[in-house]
């Protein structure tokens, strides 16, 4: 935690600033990813201000905050998706297993296989269900033959809870599935390349409650196998699926802590106002 961040939190009328400051860590176990003093600029505009946070395998980490608070921007730093935006500039340190992901020698394609991403709108390739899953392992050379590839496809679909629904129509188009199935297909696709971290950017906002519940159950099932970071507008969802919650506001990290504490007794007034619906 930098002095700058400390000062900022102290300014927030916190009755107990220390308890927030101690919560930079992700909890038990070594952090899978660490971020220190991350700043993101879009041209002149600073979208993320000095954010430091750790995520680990044991906990699902949720990022919450109002629109424009920077939570998606920050999420996209974790697998260098912001590289695709020419005016975006990222400073600070972000590591995956201790490796600087912004180091010149870092292979971004490999990085994005290790840190997979699921988007708000399901975006299956306009290919068969099978090919949607098989594509990643193929280009990353993860399978040596057809049999191994079949196994990866089956395992990934199993893990994503989709196997039973699609096993008899693997050659159908991925886009022919329902929205919820498409999203699970995208999660299976991310899983197929055996990532270490899965980033989810509002993965349920286009889904109905039943499809949402299935995704949430899936997150619960795969927790511990991958470090999971989820951005969500749905605070109940953050409360349901995560063990750690980070609240962002105007590009700063206001509070990061144990989810049950954040939703019952947040330290910062801003967090309280947001989660209780007083923000406005």
């Amino acid at each position, binding site marked *: 935690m930098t002095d700058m961040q400390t000062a900022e939190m102290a300014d927030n009328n916190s009755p107990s600033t220390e308890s927030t400051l101690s919560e930079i860590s992700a909890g038990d176990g070594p952090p899978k990813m660490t971020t220190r003093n991350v700043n993101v600029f879009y041209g002149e505009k600073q979208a993320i201000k000095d954010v430091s946070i750790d995520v680990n395998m044991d906990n699902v980490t949720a990022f919450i905050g109002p629109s424009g608070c920077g939570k998606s921007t920050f999420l996209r730093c974790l697998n260098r998706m912001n590289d695709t935006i020419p005016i975006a500039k990222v400073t600070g340190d972000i590591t995956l297993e201790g490796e600087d992901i912004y180091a010149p020698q870092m292979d971004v394609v490999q990085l994005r296989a290790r840190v997979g991403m699921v988007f708000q709108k399901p975006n299956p390739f306009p290919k068969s269900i099978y090919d949607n899953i098989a594509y990643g392992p193929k280009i990353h050379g993860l399978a040596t033959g057809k049999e191994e590839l079949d196994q990866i496809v089956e395992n990934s679909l199993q893990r994503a809870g989709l196997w039973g629904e699609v096993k008899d129509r693997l050659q159908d188009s991925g886009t022919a599935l329902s929205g919820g199935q498409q999203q699970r297909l995208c999660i299976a696709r991310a899983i197929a390349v055996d990532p270490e971290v899965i980033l989810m950017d509002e993965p349920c906002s286009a889904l109905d409650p039943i499809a949402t519940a299935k995704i949430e159950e899936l997150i619960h099932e795969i927790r511990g196998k991958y470090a999971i970071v989820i951005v969500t507008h749905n605070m109940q969802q953050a409360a349901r699926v995560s063990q750690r919650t980070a609240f962002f506001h105007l590009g700063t990290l206001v509070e990061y802590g144990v989810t049950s504490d954040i939703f019952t007794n947040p330290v910062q007034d801003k967090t309280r106002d947001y989660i*209780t619906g007083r923000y406005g």
Partner: protein
Amino acid sequence: MPNTGTEHTVKAFDTDINELRGMVAEIGGRSEQAIARSMEALKNHDLDLAAQVVEDDKLIDELEQKIDDLTFQTIALRAPMADDLRELIATFKISGVVERIGDYAKNIAKRVPLITGGKKLGPISLLPSMSRIASELVRDSLEAFARRDAELALEVSERDQVVDDFYTSIFRAVITHMIENPKDIGEAAHLLFIAKNLERIGDHATNVAEMVYFAARGEPMPERDRGENPTDLLEQPSGDEAS
């Protein structure tokens, strides 16, 4: 943050919360009144007033039900978080405790016809002061709720010791009176139960204070130091005599 005040973006949520706060204030006021009137009835041996206290307890019971219904509904519909959630949980519990306070007052009123000895029962003279303090604890615990005042809640909890001390004194005085006047034992026993009811009212006010503290701070009230009560050894384990 544009709005760090207490208003919610969804105004109907505030309406529900305000309605609940109003009802908690009302049930508190009615319970306080029941204590005062039951003691007034005792002092003047006013059987009509005593009967009225018993009758009016139904209103307290109804109010408790209304509070519980609206709290339940608000939790279900608004999915409250943080201090809102804590307040609603506290409201739910406080309504039950305050209803119980009403029951103790009703129980005192029910004993009024059975105590005919009046002032010749010496220890009775201590009861008005004890009831005044117990009543103040009820009032202040609910005031603390209305103001989200954890400090006042803490103070209420500490002041409960005064009520406990009163009970200890009355207990001794009643036992002495019983020994000296065996024919008064029946009435004196009722007197003792009344003192016990007041002592329990103080405890319940402390319970309210503890919930207020939790609602305000998000953590349990720190344990207070309690002086050893010599009557503890003689009492049944927290027996509730009220009906």
